[in-house]
């Protein structure tokens, strides 16, 4: 066998190895958490409040807290993100302003999550005096997932063929009528996928909620949007590093619930995207 082919064999073996290293690690993480976490999860674990300083009982308040935070973040980010995407895809001209907006979106996506936490603390908690509350936490998470929603929605809107718009306009529809009745309905699956991925992201993030909403231990449900709540990711952080002698089962169980939630959400997004690709008419 000549030298170039031997080199190719060695190189391809390395590439395969690199791929396997990543895949095996991902598999390992998922398998360990499922294996040790799934047996710890039962109805009582999901529906009970934490007891004995979080060393017993369940994680119900943390699940509810995360649900509130994610809902709040989406309510804030989806309308703004969708309209921003419509602007970029339908109205924006190819000029400096558009370029700056796109750069801002890229930067927003790159801001470290803990810096979002600082920002939320300074703007919502201190400046607007919302306090450490669901409102502050949701808004912080909302701004964090905004770039994700804008990017996904924009891609989806832009993939609607230009001819669809031209036909609608030529029939006498106005620009907004065209967007509302022709472009948006065809872009819904992509927008939905982006939104769902935003849900997964918001549900799993810890750093942005550290100083804006998360309660260390609060075995009750919130009464208003100005209350603190527990949240799943922060709860996992607390019981794995801040509270000594927590039963392994509770830690793995919490990690399992969080991972299962996030992966389920992502799976839904993937299925929607896949089905949409199958059905696509153009």
């Amino acid at each position, binding site marked *: 066998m000549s030298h170039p082919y031997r080199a190719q064999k060695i190189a391809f073996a390395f*590439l395969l190895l690199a791929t396997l290293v990543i895949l095996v690690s991902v598999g390992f993480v998922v398998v360990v958490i499922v294996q040790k976490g799934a047996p710890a999860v039962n109805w009582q674990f999901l529906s009970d409040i934490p007891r004995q300083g979080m060393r017993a009982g369940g994680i119900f308040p943390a699940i509810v807290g995360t649900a509130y935070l994610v809902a709040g973040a989406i309510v804030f980010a989806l309308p703004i993100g969708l309209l921003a995407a419509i602007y970029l895809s339908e109205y924006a001209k190819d000029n400096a302003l558009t370029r700056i907006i796109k750069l801002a979106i890229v*930067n927003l996506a790159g801001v470290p*999550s803990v810096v979002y936490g600082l*920002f939320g603390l*300074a703007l919502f908690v201190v400046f607007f005096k919302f306090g450490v509350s669901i409102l502050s936490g949701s808004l912080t998470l909302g701004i964090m997932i905004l770039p994700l929603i*804008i990017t996904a929605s924009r891609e989806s809107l832009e993939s609607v063929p230009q001819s669809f718009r031209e036909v609608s306009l030529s029939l006498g529809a*106005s620009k907004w009528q065209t967007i509302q009745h022709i472009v948006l309905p065809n872009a819904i699956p992509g927008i939905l996928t982006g939104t769902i991925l935003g849900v997964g992201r918001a549900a799993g*993030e810890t*750093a942005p909620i550290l100083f804006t909403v998360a309660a260390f231990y609060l075995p009750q449900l919130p009464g208003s949007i100005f209350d603190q709540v527990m949240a799943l990711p922060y709860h996992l952080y607390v019981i794995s*590093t801040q509270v000594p002698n927590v039963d392994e089962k509770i830690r793995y169980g919490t990690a399992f619930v969080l991972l299962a939630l996030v992966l389920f959400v992502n799976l839904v997004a993937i299925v929607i995207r896949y089905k949409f690709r199958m059905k696509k008419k153009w």
Partner: protein
Amino acid sequence: MRKLWEFVIEKVVLICGLASILFVVLIFLFLLREGLSVFKTVSPGAFLAGKSWYPISEPPQLGILPLVLGSLVVTIGAAIISIPIGVGCAIYIAEIAPQRLKEILKAGIELLAAIPSVVLGFIGMVTLVPLVKNLFDLPTGLTALSGSIMLAFMAMPTIVSIAEDALYSVPKAYKEGALAMGATHWQAIWRVMLRAASSGILAAIMLGIGRVIGETMAVMMITGNAAVIPHSLFVPVRTLTATIAAEMGEAVIGSEHYFALFAVGIVLFIISFAVNVTADLFLHKRQ
């Protein structure tokens, strides 16, 4: 009436489009507003180059050099691990894997991107940390090395997906030309495709490293959080991000400690801004 409606819609949509700019500016302004106050008590030079970080001693010592070096050590370690593996995986997916396997591999990478960082931190604590401790016979496994390994994996999805994109968008004719000249597939990849995709791959690496510098929870849970200047990979370190996350909860609003943590936030914001703008330039050069 309809004209007015169209006009209103257009303006509303424009305002939402501008929201991203507004938020980036607001983030920076509020970091500055809170963070710059620290320079009343410590000069910018002493803040950036000061060797001790004892924020609650009297008077507080607010030098972030140990934290900067902590971030640097962990980031360099992660880069050394993640660049060859990540780019290698990207080449495998783009060039070698058959179509069906390609979809599975991409899904696996997406799965990794979706796992919350606190879950990875937890798994790192219970598996990676004891492994590092036993393997290198250290007093503790909570070291910069553990952090580097964990962060390398967190950078992988970014590096792989963007590098794969870059390779995919190299015109087919380049590769066909190389093959027609008698090059092997590997020679075509190594000498032609990688060069043609180099600016995109560079952007992928930069964005991956940007993710590493900004990562907070996992790194806080497994690097041991010792705010001292690190002399090797085998000691506990504390990164810029972990410092904010670990200490802000106890800092009194309006105290020097509080301002100092915001100033650390400014440093992080500027780093991520620089990384993202540069990576964006590289990505556009390609087109």
